[in-house]
């Protein structure tokens, strides 16, 4: 069913939280706290910028999912601390759960991916989870 077992690493990215990207992301989300506009403190969902470092089609294929049938059901964040400009982070994404449930129109697959964002001191700043839902083939 999947090329990556539960607990397996989907991908790892390293990146720096940049002041310009904080401002850009804050503007794109209509966020008004002046600390974001100043490029000091990242917004709550800034971890999404890892999209720039990932191969979307590639990881979906490695999970054995059909990209045209994928929807994201939910996303969550657990925070130890906010991200600040200059943070050097390593984001490691793993498969946390992978289940199939029978729906009215066929089998629905639910894949939970958990990404830990670890700072230069080795401390976890936040964990982001997303639940991908693969709809039945029609």
């Amino acid at each position: 069913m999947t090329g990556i077992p539960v607990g397996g690493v989907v991908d790892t990215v390293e990146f720096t939280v940049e002041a310009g990207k904080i401002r850009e992301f804050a503007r794109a989300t209509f966020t008004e706290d002046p600390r974001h506009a100043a490029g000091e403190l990242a917004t709550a969902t800034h971890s999404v910028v890892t999209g720039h470092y990932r191969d979307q089609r590639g990881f979906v294929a490695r999970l054995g999912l059909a990209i045209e049938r994928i929807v994201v059901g939910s996303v969550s964040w657990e925070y130890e601390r906010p991200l600040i400009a200059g943070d050097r982070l390593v984001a490691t994404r793993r498969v946390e759960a992978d289940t199939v449930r029978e729906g009215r129109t066929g089998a629905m697959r639910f894949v939970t991916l958990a990404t830990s964002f670890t700072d230069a001191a080795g401390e976890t700043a936040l964990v982001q989870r997303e639940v991908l839902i693969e709809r039945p083939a029609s």
Partner: protein
Amino acid sequence: MTAGTPLVAPDARRIGPVTRTDIVRFAGAGGDFNPLHHDPDAARAAGFDDVIAMGQFQAGLLAGYLTDWVGVENLRRLEVRFRAPVRLGDVLELSATVGEAADGLTAVSLVASVGGVVVVSAEASVEAR
């Protein structure tokens, strides 16, 4: 926030009508270049009239509304559920409801709705000091 002061929800925030530019700006900020969100032909092939916003756009709007109020450093947990697509021209109304407080954390429920229909909902846990 000071100790013992209960959270009071802010006024609703209205965003929109959502434009193609809003969606493209978010794509550039976050790095989501799924054609469903910028290419009308790809969106039509997927059964939509035109492009739709990416769920992370709506999640970011709700998160920003929340943290402009409580302070991003006080957010401990946020869970966002996607209920319905957001289309070009939609006007989103964001609102918050304060729930139970226990052990220094306060629950907050958030919704984004379009014409009275909830498109995104969220549950947050906020440290209220």
